């Protein structure tokens, strides 16, 4: 049977076109209908495909090609081919499913905003590019989706474009992502130059056929891909755009900057794992980047006071876990964490959005407090998210985080080091999440503004929260059991690494679980000590080590560092060295030398020319007329007088 995969991206594209072109003139209800119908229809196509896979009425991998290729030039042949395998199916379910929920939520959240149609047009455009990214059967088509989601992200971060900070954040996101895309492009060039193809199946086959392919080459390619992945998935050193991206509307942060787009780097590494498997050094770098990002971002998250920024650093940190998982060749575990993270982080962002909505735009945790009673549904759903991300037993985050940590522990001494970093990160995660929980929902209200009363959100927003809360609580069970249970077994045909690790012994597994649970509880306990009741402990701790505190709240001053070391020097060189010296003195100066020569010639010519530009124009018209008649005569002569003008009729 055919699955009509092409419908999955094209439906949201149609939604984008309708709302983008005529949305400003349509009634709001119609805009909403179009905007929600598109992802729902795409989700249904995915579900149909999933059912077909479950019934075995279609064999994976399954692919569909556009009969007309995309780029055919010389040796380069690139097609529009969409492929469905176990990995892309899972990604598609998450992208369209969570995407649809967030569309519903947006209808409530954005109801009173100007540019409602524009918002949904961009959101549909994002889904188009994201599904292209996931379905792409070759690296260049994936790059289309890759840059495209960057565009959608740029547009949505800058949605409130009259705010300078939002416009800056959008541009920063795009440009930093472009640095990553530079790496991705070089990787594509390397693949084309060395293998003559960018098709994933073609590359995998080529590598299987030639086991002797140079490891140095594969390492280079993998590292270039990793540069791309660090851009899109906000890893060190290119993570700096993601916290700023919180300038966008909160549902955008949930969909693009937490659940789907930022996981594209993880998806890409998993998709090309046959390259990374053969490049052990690159894998090590992936693991180190992941672990370093995880702990680094978590430490910043400890002291942030903006509710969305806490979640943003948490996202960076959790993405680090996924890279850590990929780096220890536990691709299925990384994808598992990607899925559970999509549930609980989307939930956390949407719940935070509900809090912000209820408080009429307040994002500062220091001004919240006591919301447990006032926003009960938001509180309970958010609690599900907090406990899930902290890794409480039997919740989704517990299974997936544990799978990554166990895989790391299993990788020798080096892996045990990574495990320790991951464990500390888990402690920090639990602490900052419970800190947020206590600050927002417990104690007394600390708001200065007593005119507004917090109000619970409409059901269009609470509905998605409840569904995501259920998924966050129970979603982990699909990966419970040995080798990630059913989830692992389903993905095994695609994601089994070249050198599979020994399975972790059951007793060790339970011990690791015990440690993880203890750490999560410790984080909760510490957060409770500091923020559970009204006390001065947090402030006293900050005051006792002001250097550390400032370093963390200043985000290690990385933005300032990049500005000093990269941006300012580039601008200095462009403005002064290139602009003044090279351009001003050499390139343009040389003309005046030539001009001097011509002036001499001009003096000479002036003796017998009027110098009047109109007389030149007159001469020109005369000359053109002469030319015209000459050409006319010649052409007609050539055509032959007997047949003249006959050709006009044909």
């Amino acid at each position, binding site marked *: 049977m055919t699955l009509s995969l092409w419908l999955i991206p094209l439906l949201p594209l149609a939604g984008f076109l309708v709302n983008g072109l005529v949305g400003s003139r349509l009634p709001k209800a119609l805009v909403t209908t179009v905007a929600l119908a598109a992802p729902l229809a795409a989700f249904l196509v995915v579900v149909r495909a999933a059912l077909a896979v479950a019934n075995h009425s279609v064999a994976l991998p399954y692919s569909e090609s556009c009969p007309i290729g995309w*780029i055919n030039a010389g*040796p*380069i042949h690139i097609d529009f081919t969409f492929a469905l395998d176990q990995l892309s199916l899972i990604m598609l379910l998450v992208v369209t499913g969570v995407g649809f929920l967030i569309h519903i939520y947006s209808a409530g959240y954005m109801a009173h905003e100007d540019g409602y149609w524009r918002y949904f047009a961009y959101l549909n455009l994002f889904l188009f590019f994201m599904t292209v990214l996931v379905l792409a059967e070759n690296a260049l088509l994936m790059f289309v989706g890759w840059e495209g989601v960057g565009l959608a992200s740029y547009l949505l971060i800058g949605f409130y*474009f009259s705010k*300078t900070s939002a416009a800056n954040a959008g541009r920063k996101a795009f440009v930093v992502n472009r640095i990553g895309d530079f790496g991705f492009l070089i990787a594509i060039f390397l693949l084309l130059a060395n293998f003559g193809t960018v098709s994933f199946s073609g590359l995998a086959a080529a590598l299987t056929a030639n086991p002797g392919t140079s490891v140095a080459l594969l390492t280079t390619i993998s590292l270039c891909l990793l540069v791309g992945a660090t851009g899109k998935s906000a890893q060190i050193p290119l993570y700096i755009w993601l916290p700023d991206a919180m300038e966008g509307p909160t549902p955008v942060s949930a969909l693009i900057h937490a659940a789907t787009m930022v996981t594209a780097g993880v998806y890409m590494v998993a998709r090309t794992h046959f390259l990374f498997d053969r490049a052990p050094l690159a894998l090590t770098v992936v693991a180190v980047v992941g672990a370093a990002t995880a702990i680094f971002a978590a430490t910043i998250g400890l002291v942030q006071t903006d509710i969305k920024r806490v979640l943003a650093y948490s996202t960076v940190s959790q993405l680090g876990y996924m890279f850590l998982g990929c780096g220890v060749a536990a691709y299925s575990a990384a994808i598992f964490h990607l899925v559970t993270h999509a549930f609980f982080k989307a939930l956390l962002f949407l719940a935070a959005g509900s809090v912000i909505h209820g408080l009429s735009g307040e994002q500062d945790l220091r001004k919240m407090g006591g919301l447990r009673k006032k926003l009960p549904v938001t509180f309970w759903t958010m609690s599900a998210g907090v406990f899930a991300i902290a890794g409480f037993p039997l919740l989704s985050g517990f299974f997936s985080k544990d799978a990554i940590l166990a895989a790391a522990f299993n990788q020798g001494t080096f892996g045990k080091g990574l495990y320790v970093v991951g464990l500390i990160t888990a402690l920090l995660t639990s602490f900052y999440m419970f800190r947020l929980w206590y600050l927002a929902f417990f104690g007394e209200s600390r708001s200065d503004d007593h005119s507004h009363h917090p109000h619970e959100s409409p059901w269009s927003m609470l509905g998605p929260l409840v569904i995501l809360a259920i998924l966050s609580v129970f979603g982990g069970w699909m990966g419970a059991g040995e080798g990630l249970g059913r989830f692992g077994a389903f993905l095994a045909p695609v994601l089994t690494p070249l050198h599979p690790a020994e399975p972790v012994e059951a007793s060790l597994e339970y011990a690791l679980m015990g440690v993880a649970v203890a750490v999560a509880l410790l984080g909760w306990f510490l957060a409770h000590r500091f923020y559970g009741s009204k006390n001065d402990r947090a402030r006293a701790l900050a005051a006792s080590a002001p250097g550390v505190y400032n370093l963390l709240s200043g985000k290690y001053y990385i933005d300032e560092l990049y500005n000093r070391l990269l941006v300012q020097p580039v601008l200095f060189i462009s403005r002064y060295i290139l602009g003044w010296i090279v351009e001003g003195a050499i390139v343009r100066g040389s*003309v005046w030398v030539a001009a001097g020569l011509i002036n001499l010639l001009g003096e000479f010519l002036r003796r017998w020319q009027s110098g009047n530009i109109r007389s030149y124009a007159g001469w020109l018209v005369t000359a053109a007329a002469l*030319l015209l008649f000459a050409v006319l005569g010649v052409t007609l002569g050539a055509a032959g007088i007997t047949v003249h003008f006959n050709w006009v009729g044909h």
Partner: protein
Amino acid sequence: MDTQIISLILLAPLVGAILVALVPDRGKLPAWVALATTVVTFLFTLHLPAHFHYGQAGFQFESDCLWLPSPAIHYHVGVDGLSLWLIVLAGLLGPIGVLASWNSIRDRRKTFYSLFLIQQTAMIGVFVALDLMLYYGFWELSLIPMAILIAMYGRTQSDPGGPKAALRFFLFTFIPSAPLLVALLWLYAKTHTFDFTTLQQAIASGTIPAGPLCWLSLAFLFAFAVKVPVFPLHGWLTDVFAEAPVAMAMVVAGKLGLYSLIRFHVGLFPVQARAAAPWLLVLAVIGILYGALLALVQKDFWRLLAYGTLSSLSFCVLGIYGFTLSGLDGSVYQTLNEGIIGAALFVLFGLIYERFGTSQISVYGGLASKTPALAATFTIASLALIGLPMLNGFVGEFLVLSSTFAGASRTLAVIATAGVILSAAYMLQLIQRVFLGPISDIASNLEDHDRDFDLDFRERLVLWPLAVLMLVMGLAPALWLRAIEPAVQPASLPAQVHAARPTPPVSAQLVVSGGQQ
């Protein structure tokens, strides 16, 4: 029809120019005549792709007759895959140029449109001429109206904006034309022909010694490189962009020079072109980065566009001198892209300038909320320029960069790819400073007027087809590449193969295709 169509295309604008000169200078009448002429010309140019034999190398729609017996100058014109789309592009830019000048040219309309139409003929003439003297005539003819119009319609009021830019343009393009003419005459003296294919064979068969060939090829290269422009010969570009009327500025750079490089530098002197390639590759890569870096710090949007154009034209040069098939494909494609994207950006800047009267970027800001359609169109054109996939700029850049990487030099390709980052930086910064952020004084003044400042019907008519073209060219490049590839194939082959065969396959096909017409 097929043998006469090119003559028709060349004649139509000239007839229009005479008509414009004859009609009374009443209101917009000259503009209407010019518009009708350019539309007819454009429709004529569409005949070419409709009846082109795809997949066939060599010239089609050929017409050859003796014009002057001594020196033997022929009226020899023809089209191949290299020139096909450039002619159509030139045809398309005709009506767009007229519409872009609709309101901005208010006085001496007859002069303006006459010269504009002559320039139109000259430009198409450059693409179709297969006799080198005829080519030279068109080449020179294209420069004169340009220089006059820049002088007459200089944009800045500051004395002497226009004339100074015109002088600069004139100096830059006329000085290199002189050695080009000398080289042509020298070739004629040796071979007694100006015919392109005859000369190509004569040079390939070794009639002319290597020493003079080297000088000849340099004379050609110099003339064309200035016109492209190739770094560091771009000294005229910024002033011309800042001063020239929009309709002129959008055709002044790129196409003519790049076409001439491929046809006459690489085509006539394959061995010498290869020898010069390493230098040109390096200059191209410098041009990409240099243009982008300077665009990053410009305060005037015309100058920003000039440096951005330098940067994207350098991609075309990079593709040509890599001598790979896909790179040449990409170069020609990128030339078309540059024509379309550049035209759109010029029209957009032109209408912003028309509304607000300044090109200082710093006084703008927050326009998007007042002029959403303008902002959206500008964003699409900018995204095409910075090479967003699915838009046309990406296809050209990708082909050029990937073939440079696989063929000419990995290091150069990697450095050039960094230009991709910078292009995003300068274009998005421009968008932000003009359209986003808090509403500037200039934008808030709009509320005092009753007029709607967003795109009007005429502007949509110009811009939206261009935007659609950017998308279609990004999605289905095959429509264009299938004509381009056979035409650039010979240039990608090693030069010695060319010289070794007594009758190269290209010319063999030429005879056949010529005979069929």
